[in-house]
């Protein structure tokens, strides 16, 4: 089996890598957005008496 630059396998692997890359980027954006929402909503404030020393 020869591997030219345009082999179908390359295209499929590029598609797979791109998909995983986009999913990871989306995950980072979601965690960031969630953190912003939680902080601005007061959801991440410690209750009195629960502060860590």
């Amino acid at each position, binding site marked *: 089996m020869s*591997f030219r630059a345009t082999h179908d396998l390359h295209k*499929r692997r590029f598609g*797979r890598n791109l998909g995983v890359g986009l999913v990871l980027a989306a995950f980072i954006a979601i965690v960031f957005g*969630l953190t912003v929402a939680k902080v601005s*909503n007061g959801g991440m404030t410690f209750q009195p008496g629960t502060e860590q020393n």
Partner: protein
Amino acid sequence: MSDASINASNIREDEAGFGDYFALLKPRVMSLVVFTALVGLLAAPVTVHPMVGFCAILFIAIGGGASGALNMWWDADIDRVMKRTRGRPIPSGKVEPGEAMALGLALSGMSCIMLALATNIFAGAFLAFTIFFYVVVYTMWLKRLTPQNIVIGGAAGAFPPVIGWIAATGSMAVEPWLMFALTFLWTPPHFWALALFMRNDYDDAGVPMLTVTHGRRATRVHILVYTLLLALFAVGAAFSGIGGPLYLAVSLVLNMLFILGAFRIWRRDEAASEADNFATERSFFKLSLLYLFLHFGAVLAEALLRPYGLGGWG
């Protein structure tokens, strides 16, 4: 790794693409999970930050998808036999069973932890229980053991609105369990109609569906009985916390159509069904999808109208 280091004997021409891994998550089932969980979340009497609500639905959907991947890993042997499932990524040879298991386990853990972090621990734990119920109780245990597999296993598909409600409120109430019961009672007639027109699929695979163990006549009777039970419950729910005049109107029309469909299935024999390639059974199956979608749509409409004094009975 450069191309020069690739051993050509290890290369598969039909290597999986990104879409094949996505197909492991059963996107069509996921759409039902997303919609019912969304209704559970929006019908709850609390305000949820849109980003938190979006994340809750997303992680519930990923959890549902993860259980689909684990189901495909475990059931690869019977998927290979059935016409309906032969093209799935594992039986078609595109994805290795171990890959599906790894993806399922990783996404299960990730979705439960992220749901717990995004909303509350109760919701995360309940999502974990749902995945356990679908994968272990239904897929591994009941599916190949009893003809009631669909009845009990249907509970797994009915949990999403409960998870959505818990994600919003952090507590349990009667309303999400009414939505659970609606999906739970809807599942048997929906799947038995499918089993009727997929004919020998389950038989070939050795799955003890009602059509295989008790015969097709008994399945037709069961569809009618369960449809009548479902109709009683669905219309009765109009007078509960999730119902209202709009829900009642929608439910009355849909249940009349559904009972009529079930009655037609009950009245037919195999010769008549085969003559028109199971047209009545197929249209009943299609109607069942619309039935659930519109019932949950009506529950959502009642909940969204409530702040304006229009939803519910008063």
